[in-house]
């Protein structure tokens, strides 16, 4: 991808024995990119790798063409709003942001002024002089965001930035993300709810159990998800009869008889059509089934989970 400032090249990360992410190839360009996946799928791991807080066990991560771990100069161009809901002891919102702006080399006066600008962007001015420890969850989320964007970085990495916010605040922040993207920034955000970000993201990266399962704009992702072949295990007394009934339909990709003679494995591209067909065959008495079980329902399950109950939005 041209203009991609973030590249993952065959990156795996293990925490001891535990898989964080596996063999990720990814390039992230300007605009808004959403990393979407259930809890524990590896979103935060990818973001920590991008920002050098973690190092890959295998492969290479580059931002601006450099490995982020051990390249501190990059951080004038990167802002990261991490998942941790924690702050240095005893600071007010404004001190919190100004203190770290000083570490970017700003004078105290510049830092104070910039801190206020950033706080204003997340609409938190009235609380700027209050201790962060006294903030509500939503305010803490926003002050973290302000801290990440205070030094005006080219790349903004935001881990679940909409978490814990009311709908009003969400709408405002989404507007802010759009502004940043329109100004040419790379905005990478994560969420475990697809329809929370699908309206705002230019690109969606679906992650599940450490694997990138699909990537692209929303229609592309949908196609990839829907077209992902699904395997279904049928148990019945007469597998060859069932096989011959199924074969006639072109959405069936493959049928394999099970070794024990008591079942068969079916591979299809269209789950819905397949289940309709199965209903027809059973209710018209042409076949007799003991059990139906998706053998590999990962993809669909994740998809359904992510889209939530009202799956129609995708």
């Amino acid at each position: 991808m041209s203009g991609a400032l973030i590249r993952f090249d065959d990156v795996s990360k293990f925490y001891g024995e535990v898989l964080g992410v596996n063999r990720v190839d990814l390039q992230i360009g300007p605009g808004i990119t959403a990393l979407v996946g259930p809890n524990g799928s590896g979103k935060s791991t990818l973001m920590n790798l991008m920002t050098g807080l973690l190092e890959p066990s295998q492969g290479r991560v580059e931002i601006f063409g450099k490995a982020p771990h051990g390249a501190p100069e990059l951080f004038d161009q990167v802002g990261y709003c991490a998942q941790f809901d924690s702050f240095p002891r005893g600071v007010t919102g404004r001190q919190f942001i100004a203190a770290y702006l000083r570490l970017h080399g700003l004078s105290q006066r510049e830092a104070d002024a910039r801190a206020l600008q950033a706080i204003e962007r997340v609409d938190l001015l009235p609380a700027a002089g209050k201790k962060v420890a006294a903030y509500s969850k939503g305010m803490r989320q926003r002050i973290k965001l302000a801290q990440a964007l205070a030094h005006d970085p080219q790349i903004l990495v935001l881990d679940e930035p909409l978490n814990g916010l009311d709908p009003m605040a969400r709408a405002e922040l989404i507007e802010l993300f759009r502004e940043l993207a329109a100004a040419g920034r790379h905005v990478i955000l994560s969420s475990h709810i697809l329809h929370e970000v699908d309206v705002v993201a230019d690109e969606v990266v679906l992650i599940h159990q450490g694997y990138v399962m699909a990537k692209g704009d929303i229609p592309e992702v949908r196609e990839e998800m829907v077209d992902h072949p699904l395997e279904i295990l049928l148990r019945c007394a007469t597998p060859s009869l069932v096989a011959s009934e199924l074969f006639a339909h072109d959405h069936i990709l493959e049928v394999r008889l099970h070794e024990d003679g008591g079942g068969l494995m079916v591979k299809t591209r269209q789950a819905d059509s397949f289940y309709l067909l199965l209903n027809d065959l059973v209710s018209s008495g042409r076949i007799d089934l003991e059990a139906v079980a998706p053998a590999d329902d990962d993809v669909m399950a994740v998809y359904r989970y992510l889209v939530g109950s009202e799956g129609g939005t995708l």
Partner: protein
Amino acid sequence: MSATSRRLMGVARLEWRRQLAPGRTLWLVFLAMGPVAVMAIMAWMTHKFGPPPGTSEMREIFGQFFQGMVVRGVLFFGCATIFLGQIRGELDQRSWHYSLLTPIPRWQLVIGKYIAGVLLAWALFVVSSGLSRAIFQLTLGTPGFADPGVQKELLGYMAMAALGCLAYGAFFLAVGTLLRGPGYIVAVYFLLEWIQFLLPPGLKQLSVVHYLRTLSPVPLSEGPFALLAEPSPAWWVVSQLLIYTLVGVGLAVWKVSRAELDYRS
């Protein structure tokens, strides 16, 4: 100011703000004022009930008091509070990532924090050591502060406190950076500081008291188990303490430079 020095000043200011959160400040000031209060009470008692026995004996009592209460009490726990509160404190509070995500090389973060911690410890404990010795002079009565011997002794105690802060600081910075739960090490180390004269030579090198004792402005009797040996010259002891400090800070820098962020406790 160059950008680098501005950044280091930034690290220090942030560190002071963290260190001087209300509850901690109270504890640190309480520690620093401890020996001053003891000496003030002693001076008051002298004023009230008359002077204690001979001056040279009294000066050794202060010397022992300094090794016991000031070094093993105030400096030990004061530096444990300040320097375990640095990187270990940031890890425990999950605020370390904010610093790691700034354009400051990690070694500079560690050094900046350490220097800020040392300056704070000096402001508290070197001042308190000098003050205690000065007030002690009221108990002794003669000679007055104008006496060069008295001034030299006072400076000697302050220098010992300064060196103690450097070495304890480096020790606790390193321990807090290398270990997740340094509590038991602190307990063992505390014990070690009290029985350092019993330790085999190798372990003695770890004890800050072991070095500081030999720098005492007044000769101290070594206790029943001590091996009699020629005292090392001061310059040699001071360089050993500085090497001790460099090793501690170096270990912390090494660990932080290669470590991944890990907040599990």
